[in-house]
């Protein structure tokens, strides 16, 4: 009789199992978690190298590097989850620089006790989002913290992209006479999260707009319009993004409230909570600032793309030494659209 035995390894219990401290301790348990869950889902030749880093082929052109930490609560929300969000967020940061996204790296901070079934859902959602975007997750890291020292899971993604010759986008390039374009409705992501967090339900569900925008950006760059600035209005919303641009470019911005698209159910939820959609986070929208004469052409290209169906020209860049973002209200009056102060808090009455 042979004395040879095949070592039996109990498979990860992806139904009932939970994250244990050993999953971050560097031993067999960690290797199993990485192999069975992460590597299996993200599967690509760079990750399969199995080294501490991914060895990547040479690329010509200017590189863009960006990173983004994701700490959303709830982890699963209408329209997405922390997994796809962490891919879209970083892909979009690259796209806003005019870059073609090439590779992603992902690091996970997991809390002891976190259900493996939830982790699997998140990882598969990330893998799906990365595949859909055509950007592989080529390396990563996992740490486990004791129960109570994390909020389930935190995901940080880093992205590398390349910018082709002739494209320079920057927040300091807005010039008086430029037009401001928005790729779609405001506030969908933030209100989806908030309504779920507060247990508020509305007639129609509010669905997060989380999406990768590099396809839309590629179409916009290809049309040859004289683009100056691209930004995705995430935290702090459109108002904060435009104030950043106004400050960087030393210009003012003038908006038309009536031109800014907002989904009726989002508008209703904001109204109900005393919040302003201009300050609510988006995860699948962009703001473009381009030369005035190219605005209509750019708008047509955006509207023809699935991510820009409700795109609109919402305002113009003006001279203003004080850098105010102003808005002509639906009513016909004017107001400032100021920086967000602290966090938006619901009003009392």
């Amino acid at each position: 009789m042979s004395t040879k035995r095949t070592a039996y390894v109990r498979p990860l219990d992806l139904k009932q199992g939970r994250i244990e401290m050993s999953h971050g301790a560097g031993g067999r348990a960690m290797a199993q978690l990485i192999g069975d869950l992460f590597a299996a889902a993200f599967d690509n030749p760079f990750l399969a190298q199995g080294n501490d880093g991914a060895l990547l082929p040479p690329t010509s052109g200017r590189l863009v590097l960006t990173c983004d930490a994701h700490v959303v609560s709830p982890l699963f929300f209408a329209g997405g989850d922390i997994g796809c969000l962490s891919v879209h967020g970083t892909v979009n940061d690259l796209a806003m620089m005019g870059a073609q996204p090439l590779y992603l790296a992902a690091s996970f901070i997991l809390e002891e006790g976190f259900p493996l079934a939830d982790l699997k859902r998140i990882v598969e959602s990330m893998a799906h989002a990365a595949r859909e975007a055509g950007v592989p997750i080529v390396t990563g890291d996992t740490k486990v913290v004791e129960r109570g020292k994390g909020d389930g899971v935190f995901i940080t993604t880093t992205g590398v992209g390349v910018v082709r010759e002739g494209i320079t986008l920057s927040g300091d390039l807005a010039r008086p006479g430029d037009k401001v374009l928005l790729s779609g409705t405001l506030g969908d992501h933030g209100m989806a999260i908030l309504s779920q967090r507060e247990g508020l339900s509305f007639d129609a569900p509010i669905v997060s707009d989380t999406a990768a925008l590099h396809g839309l950006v590629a179409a916009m760059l290809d049309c040859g319009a004289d683009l100056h600035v691209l930004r995705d209005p995430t935290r702090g919303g459109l108002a904060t993004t435009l104030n950043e641009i106004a400050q960087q470019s030393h210009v003012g911005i003038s908006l038309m409230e009536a031109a800014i698209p907002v989904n009726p159910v989002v508008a209703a939820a904001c109204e109900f909570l005393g919040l302003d959609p201009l300050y609510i986070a988006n995860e699948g929208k962009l703001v473009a600032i381009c030369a005035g004469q190219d605005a209509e052409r750019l708008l047509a290209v955006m509207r023809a793309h699935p991510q820009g169906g409700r795109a609109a020209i919402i305002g113009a860049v003006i001279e203003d030494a004080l850098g105010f973002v102003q808005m002509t209200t639906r009513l016909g009056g004017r107001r400032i659209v100021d920086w967000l102060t602290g966090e938006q808090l619901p009003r009392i009455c």
Partner: protein
Amino acid sequence: MKYVDEFRDGDLAKNIARKIALAANTNRTYRLMEFCGGHTHAISRYGIADLLPANVRMIHGPGCPVCVLPIGRVDQAIRLAREQGVILCTYADTMRVPASNNLTLMRAKADGADVRMIYSTQDALKIARDNPEREVVFFAIGFETTTPPTAVAIKQAAAEGLKNFSILCNHVLTPAAMHAILNVEGGVKLDGFVGPAHVSTVIGSQPYEVFASDYHKPVVIAGFEPLDVMQSILMLVRQINDGRAAVENEFTRAVTREGNRKAQSLVGEILELRETFEWRGLGTVPNSALRLRPGYAAFDAEPRFGVEYVAVPDHKACECGAILRGEKRPQECKIFGTVCTPQNPVGSCMVSSEGACAAHYTYGRFREEVQ
């Protein structure tokens, strides 16, 4: 959005603006006070000032719940949270009101105090039920709009025998504040009031009749939508032109003369008048606030935890007092927009988006900076 867009229509606004411009007599000024912070916010947010002739001037009133709360009241709440170890439940706006020693409820929270932001008194009750081993105190503030929900909570807590729930009661009364403003010696000259919206749904229009009969000030109760405000301004200008002083109701879709009788009787059952109460800006005003009736004294956090009210003077340079009385405009305060901003508020008027200073800073300050 249905039932909202109709009240924000630009064409209708221009139409009313034209009527106001036609009606307003160019030989005089119209000094109108919008009592409520909700109106202040609407006026600033929609840029209503741009649609009014120069001689129709809106003066911001004191109807912003957190603005009129004196420092000493916030101090009490912070003391409860820090020293008594209670779970302090509060409406969001109150979290950032500056108190003594450079503290706010938000900073106390960051420092380890258990302060929780809630949307309704029902949330506070739930927290009390879920934490039977902890004391839970609701920081009850606001005008007549927020008072009935507090009364409901007390009634429920009493019925359930909820022993770990109490309130720090700071509910105040609108008509008392209007009296106080009209009685300030050398105070602001007013030609009429845009009357409260939500407050009036509870108390009705009848309590304002005394301002028309005894003070000869027209009052037009208005909703919080921009067209409501504009329509009420037109109604006020017409009354003033006719030399009339009456209580008129623009907000008929929600306000009656009697108000919400059920809410009134509930409040009357649980709460009673305080002989005096200190307001920020208005000082000590007789019969201007409410406290729990003796039968519900067990729910009163002040005696329960022995936290007494200690009056604290406002910051020396802060003009919140004069601004709340309508005597000064935000931009006339020395520290407006420099030391005192929504990010680092010195005075309470810079905290809530309903506060006159915060509203002007956030929505309107380009007007004087451009000039």
